[in-house]
């Protein structure tokens, strides 16, 4: 059974979580050549905001799960 506090993503472009992760990797990972030309990328700031949203979403999901479990315990299930 999947653990409630682990979310796995595999890099599929159709997945919103993966989209942010892909952009993060493409923009921040890999070899940098000194002297290469630098051109800005539109919406880069949004990528970083998006990654924060991803992590916040994980936290929110956990709180919902925990709250659900607590309610179940309160009901004696």
């Amino acid at each position, binding site marked *: 059974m999947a653990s409630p506090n682990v979310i796995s993503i595999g890099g599929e472009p159709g997945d919103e979580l993966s989209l942010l992760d892909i952009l993060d990797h493409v923009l921040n990972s890999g*070899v940098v*050549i000194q002297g290469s030309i630098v051109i800005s990328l539109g919406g880069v700031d949004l990528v970083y905001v998006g990654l924060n949203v991803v992590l916040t979403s994980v936290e929110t999901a956990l709180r919902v799960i925990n709250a659900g479990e607590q309610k179940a315990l309160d009901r004696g299930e």
Partner: protein
Amino acid sequence: MSCAAKLLAYCVVQNSEDHAPSVGVRGAPLQSMQMETLRCIYSPLIPPQEFNQDDALRFHAVLNSVFDQQSIIPFRFPTLLQNETALQEHLREKLGVYSADLHRLSDMVQMELRIAANQEYAAPASSGIEYLQSKQQHSRALQTASRRARDVLGDLVAEWKERDTVNGLRCYALVERSKVTSFRQKMQATNFSGPCAVLSSGPWPATEFLHE
């Protein structure tokens, strides 16, 4: 090639007959430059004033189709070089390092974990001591989760690196390509049972384990 055109560099691979897609960012034809045991994939491109998300995703798609077949050393997007001579000089300069990295990392991929502590640890502190205590508690929770992940993954991980980030801890695991499924299964089956959330992703090219 027009005088305004530059070269968009995608990645370096070991020389092989593997196939890359024929077109890259903005429909530019993909070409390759060989130097001894290396092959660099690039495309001539008249750079726009600003690249957009679709360009970045197309770049990723090219990398991914090559990475599906073998290990790659990707360039950060967008890396633009003046001309073939500049690319040739770069490859000549890095030939030894790139060859050694590709040999060492062949059949290896990078799996990643983002570990974030829940918001209770980020609650505003009313004093300096409280702030430091909260920060220490936060750091301990992240380290405990990281240790738990390493224990669970055991021999699946050939090498492990960590970086502190604003949101928590980012962990990079070097894993054999054939063991990716086991990695995912082990992570999915693990309950961290603490105050941390874990986001697992991959496989990615092993950029954190390059010598550069």
